[in-house]
């Protein structure tokens, strides 16, 4: 049913705006000093009278959370407000202890940002950031057997909300925006960005419109999709919603402005029961918290702490080190990977295409080992591998000076990954050094030729593609340790001796 409509998609423009909630990596909560390490903790053990909303308690602002938000705003190209004000957002739910959430409304910390998103096809699209503001997380409820069980460990954890303009026009763009955003958050060290753990939550507002509507500056009815637990789910939900909405319109219906949830199993959006009939939040300035004044000096201080961001790193790798865009992308997505790469290049050298060779080894061999390591496909594990960047540089140097050949290098890397030993020690211990002694190679070649008279005859009869067969036999006879160039040269000479 859905597939049939896809060919007419071009009649409609997809319009998506994104709200992203990000938990900040502070040690204490936003407005009280409870620890934020609630993951795996028993319920209601990271709580105090303040985050339980007990009568008479008052909030106090966590400076690090403010600075993390400003830092994020700067990284997203935002203007930083001279004055930012916390406001009470009033709504009722048992996991919202005070009956209001302290958030920001009219005067958020950051406004008017812009992120340029690079797509796989090489194109770049700008996505405007409307605002970045700071608020507090709610608790969590588990529903079971006619009861709700409320755990307030999470209540009050600093939460940053990033809101984009409706500048996203494909699921791919949304995906690229989110992965890019997560990358920036991790570079800044402000959030783990882990969607699976709820540290990053995305709510796309999805609508479609006809060119005529677009010409009139109109939008279609928005559907907000909640509880998306992965970037893939965001992409799938957008694609699904787009097709669903087009379908509704084409069958003469109207899209309803509703909240939907994502059913991961059935890969479809489902209508969400509304929690609360009212969305009149009655925002007003939080009288318990004096405003924030973001002086030029303070903002400059925060700006000075900004690291080189992924986009800039990627450009530098391509420009200064001649990397191909593919590897430059792969190395800059995670700051920990880029950090490893830069350490390895520093030890290995920047000349003669060395950075590209190092990039190939990291994105090829090292990533393979990390991915195979069972801990899930998370490249941040590079920080925990037992190989130091300088050790990987040493391995490549052994290949460069022909102590070992590249294939042996991969074996050595496997051992390094398992043991953390230096490559020189592994090569010596395992006797893996290349054989470039021509007498040893000559002996091997001679015995191979003697053992395969038929193939030798066919070769000499003009079937030169059999060179590969002989080469393989020679490498096998030397247990792979023969210097392939030396072996190739001697084999050629001896084959051609008629």
């Amino acid at each position, binding site marked *: 049913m859905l597939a049939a409509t896809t060919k007419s998609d071009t009649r409609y423009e997809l319009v998506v705006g994104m709200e992203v909630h990000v938990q900040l990596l502070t040690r204490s909560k936003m407005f009280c000093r409870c620890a934020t390490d609630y993951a795996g903790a028993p319920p209601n053990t990271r709580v105090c*009278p303040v985050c339980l909303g007990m009568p008479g308690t008052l909030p106090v602002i966590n400076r690090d959370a403010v600075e993390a938000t400003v830092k994020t705003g700067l990284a997203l190209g935002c203007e930083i407000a001279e004055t930012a004000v916390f406001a009470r957002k009033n709504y009722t739910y048992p996991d919202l202890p005070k009956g209001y959430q302290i958030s920001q409304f009219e005067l958020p910390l950051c406004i008017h940002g812009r992120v340029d998103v690079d797509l796989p096809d090489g194109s770049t699209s700008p996505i405007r950031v409307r605002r970045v503001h700071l608020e507090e997380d709610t608790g969590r409820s588990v529903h079971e057997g006619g009861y709700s069980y409320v755990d307030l460990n999470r209540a009050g954890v600093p939460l940053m909300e990033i809101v984009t303009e409706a500048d996203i026009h494909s699921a791919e763009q949304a995906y690229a925006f989110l992965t890019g955003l997560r990358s920036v958050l991790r570079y800044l060290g402000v959030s783990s960005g882990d969607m699976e753990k709820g540290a990053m939550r995305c709510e796309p507002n999805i609508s479609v419109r006809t060119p005529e509507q677009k010409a009139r500056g109109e939008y279609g009815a928005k559907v907000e999709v909640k509880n998306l637990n992965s970037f893939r789910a965001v992409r799938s939900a957008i694609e699904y919603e787009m097709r669903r909405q087009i379908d509704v319109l084409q069958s003469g219906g109207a899209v309803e402005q509703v909240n939907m949830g994502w059913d991961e199993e059935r890969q479809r959006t489902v209508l969400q029961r509304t929690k609360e009939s009212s969305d009149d939040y009655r925002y007003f300035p939080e009288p318990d918290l004096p405003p924030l004044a973001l002086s030029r000096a303070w903002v400059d201080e925060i700006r000075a702490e900004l690291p080189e961001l992924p986009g800039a790193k990627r450009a530098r790798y391509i420009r200064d080190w001649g990397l191909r865009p593919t590897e430059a992308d792969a190395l800059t997505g995670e700051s920990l990977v880029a950090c490893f790469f830069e350490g390895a290049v520093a030890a290995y050298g920047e000349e003669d295409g060395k950075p590209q060779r190092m990039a190939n080894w990291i994105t090829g061999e090292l990533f393979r080992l990390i991915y195979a390591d069972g801990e899930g496909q998370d490249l941040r594990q590079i920080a925990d591998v037992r190989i130091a960047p300088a050790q990987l540089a040493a391995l490549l140097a052994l290949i460069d000076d022909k102590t070992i050949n590249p294939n042996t290098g991969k074996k050595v890397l496997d051992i390094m990954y398992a043991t953390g030993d230096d490559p020189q020690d592994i090569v010596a211990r395992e006797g893996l050094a290349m054989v470039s002694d021509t007498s040893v190679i000559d002996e091997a070649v001679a015995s191979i030729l003697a053992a395969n008279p038929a193939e030798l005859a066919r070769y000499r009869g003009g079937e030169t593609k059999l060179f590969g067969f002989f080469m393989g036999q020679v490498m096998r006879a030397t247990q792979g340790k023969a210097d392939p160039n030396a072996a190739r040269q001697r084999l050629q000479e001896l084959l051609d001796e008629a």
Partner: protein
Amino acid sequence: MTHDKTAQDKRALHELTIHAALEGMRSGEFTSVQLTQALLDRIAAVDGNVKAYLRVTAEKALAQAEKADRRRAAGDDAPLLGAPLAIKDVLATSGVETTCGSRILQGFMPPYTATAVARLNDAGMVMLGKTNTDEFAMGSSTENSAFFTTHNPWDFDRVPGGSSGGSAAAVAADEALGALGTDTGGSVRQPAALCGVVGLKPSYGRVSRFGLIAYGSSLDQIGTLTKDVRDAALLLNVIAGSDPLDSTCLETPAPDYTAALTGDVRGLRIGLPDEYFIDGMQPEVEASVRQAVAELERLGAEVVRISLPNTDKALPVYYLAATAEASANLARYDGVRFGYSAGADSMFENIRRTRGEGFGAEVKRRIMLGTYALSAGYYDAYYLKAQQVRTLIKRDFEQAFTQVDVIAAPTSPTTAFRIGEKVDDPIQMYLTDIFTISANLAGVCAVSVPCGFDKANLPIGMQLIGPHLGEETILRAADAYERATDWQRHAPALTGRAS
């Protein structure tokens, strides 16, 4: 009948001021245990009629008194060591039930103590108990207490004022040497005036609000109810000062307020605002206050006629701004984490019923008003407009304090009214705060001191308003006036039809 306490050779222990009691304990004349027991005896004797206390913590009080005596024996002379005081029940006290005079908080045992109370504890206070209040400090008579109405010690048929009516009545009836109250729109000063004691509302930000169960957060301030001005200064010395738990509490160090009590008001410029002497106020109140100002003039102060032109807007501004804040502050009473739960079997219905049954009529009225003032379509016309007019009211005071040091005015337009007289007419009840709310809106300090009696022998209070952090000036003026008069030496009749 009134009798003059000074006529007696020696006052009973429960009649002492805090500073006199401290002198007595310092000189070894009596111990804190003796003093505390005297107060507990007094409470046992009269509180059945006054009903100032929601709960008396006799055992804890005696234990604290014993500890105070041990500390004193060990050479300690903390500023309030062994002084028995009462605490309004909107201040959280760890391990002692704290209800705000509301059914919704019945049984609530806070695991924390309000900073101001903690400081009194550190200074050696003996806490006698928690005093009655209008529910969530919303009211001017204690008639909005969910538990009972406190009676005015001068006439049991009349209200003590409110919302700190329990604290004011306890001090007036010698059931505590002094007490803490809270003042959002006059809730310390108005009951002080109606009960004939001294009521101090410090400047906003002077005393930490941590543990003060919020009504109107931008207006709430903890204040003192005492038998004289010196005691007010003594208590303020202890409770004033910055608190890392309250972001709206000022870092400005608190001076020794007793040092300001020089008795000298020569050259002090006192402003008399036209707008505070209006038609409809009780003539005896106007006469007494004018006479009190004349007394200050006689003592060397200079009296200046001033204008606070937006005074008649203060009441509506207050009832929109305070209730808007209250509507959010009281949203946390949902029957989940503490307090009353109606036990309905669906989530939101339980919240609605818990609140519908747990809150009293006035609290619900104010939550409704505040919710309305913030709601879509009305925010600009009510909440925002009120906060803008509040700016003008604040500017009126800033302007006035360029001309004068202190503003003198009546505290309440009338003396204590009869129980039940205004309960059915919210606006009439709200109008009793007409002279006190401006100080809260502007964040300035004010003190009410006894300045006479009406024909029915009910006390009248004069309010001295000072600029922000002008506590030393208003206390100096109030103290000088008090020294020159003897109103505070009159004792209440402790009679009425209710007895």
